[in-house]
């Protein structure tokens, strides 16, 4: 159908979703799309992203306060520091866009939702078992990064402005990098558990 309509680069993914071995996203197309109108400027997009990164940083902090396991605590602190770096990346992007200072960004951001759009209090309640092991923490973190990548991609589709769309694709690309980093951490944790 697509090739018949002039598309020249169409590839079928063998085996479909069942054969996909990477992290998957979930939820309907409209999940958390209430966070955007589609008319946001590039700076406003960064404000939304910053709020969610801060939200995830806070979620890791809350989970760290609740754990008594040293390995999990250490990992949660590391995940928190990774999110702190992501926030600083957004501060730089905000400045590069000419949108304002870090204090402007922080004052406008909303912190009710964490990365991917969920609410921290609900999430922690529903996923408390995942925080009982380093492996569980990392698998959860990877799921959240996959949700964030998915959400930024869906935001990009909604944007009417090309500049905002480009910023969102840049943010989605960052999430791909984050996923790779977490995947490497998980492999090391799983490797330590063998034998």
């Amino acid at each position, binding site marked *: *159908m*697509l*090739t018949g*309509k*002039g*598309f*020249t*680069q*169409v*590839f*079928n*993914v*063998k*085996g*479909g*979703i069942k*054969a*996909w*071995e*990477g*992290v*998957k*996203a*979930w*939820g*309907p*197309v409209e999940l958390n799309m209430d966070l955007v109108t589609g008319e946001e400027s590039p700076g406003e997009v960064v404000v939304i992203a910053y709020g969610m990164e801060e939200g995830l940083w806070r979620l890791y902090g809350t989970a760290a306060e609740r754990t008594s396991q040293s390995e999990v605590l250490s990992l949660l602190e590391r995940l928190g520091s990774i999110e702190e770096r992501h926030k600083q990346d957004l501060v730089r992007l905000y400045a590069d866009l000419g949108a304002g200072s870090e204090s402007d960004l922080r004052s406008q951001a909303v912190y009710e939702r964490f990365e991917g759009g969920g609410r921290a209090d609900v999430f922690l309640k529903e996923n408390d078992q995942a925080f009982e092991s380093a492996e569980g923490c990392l698998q959860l973190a990877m799921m959240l990064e*996959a*949700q964030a*990548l*998915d959400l*930024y*991609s869906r935001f*990009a*589709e909604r944007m009417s402005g090309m500049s905002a*769309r*480009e910023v969102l*694709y*840049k943010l*989605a*690309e960052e999430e*791909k990098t984050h996923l*790779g980093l977490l995947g490497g951490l998980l492999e090391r944790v799983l490797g330590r558990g063998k034998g």
Partner: protein
Amino acid sequence: MINLKQLFSHVSSLDPAEVKAYIAENPAGSYTILDVRQSGEYEKAHIPGAKLIPLPELDGRVNELPREKPIFVY
């Protein structure tokens, strides 16, 4: 009845690992991952960043797809 073989008869097939490698090496937004299943299936699990256009709707929504970018369909 839609014949999937006919729909994909002139389309190359790639292993998921090849698609993952392409995605890893190319920036988000430079390609399209297209999910042609029903919304309920998409909701349960989908490739992160995939665009959903259920197959029965594809003909009428084909203009939503950028022609100049590679499309990975599942």
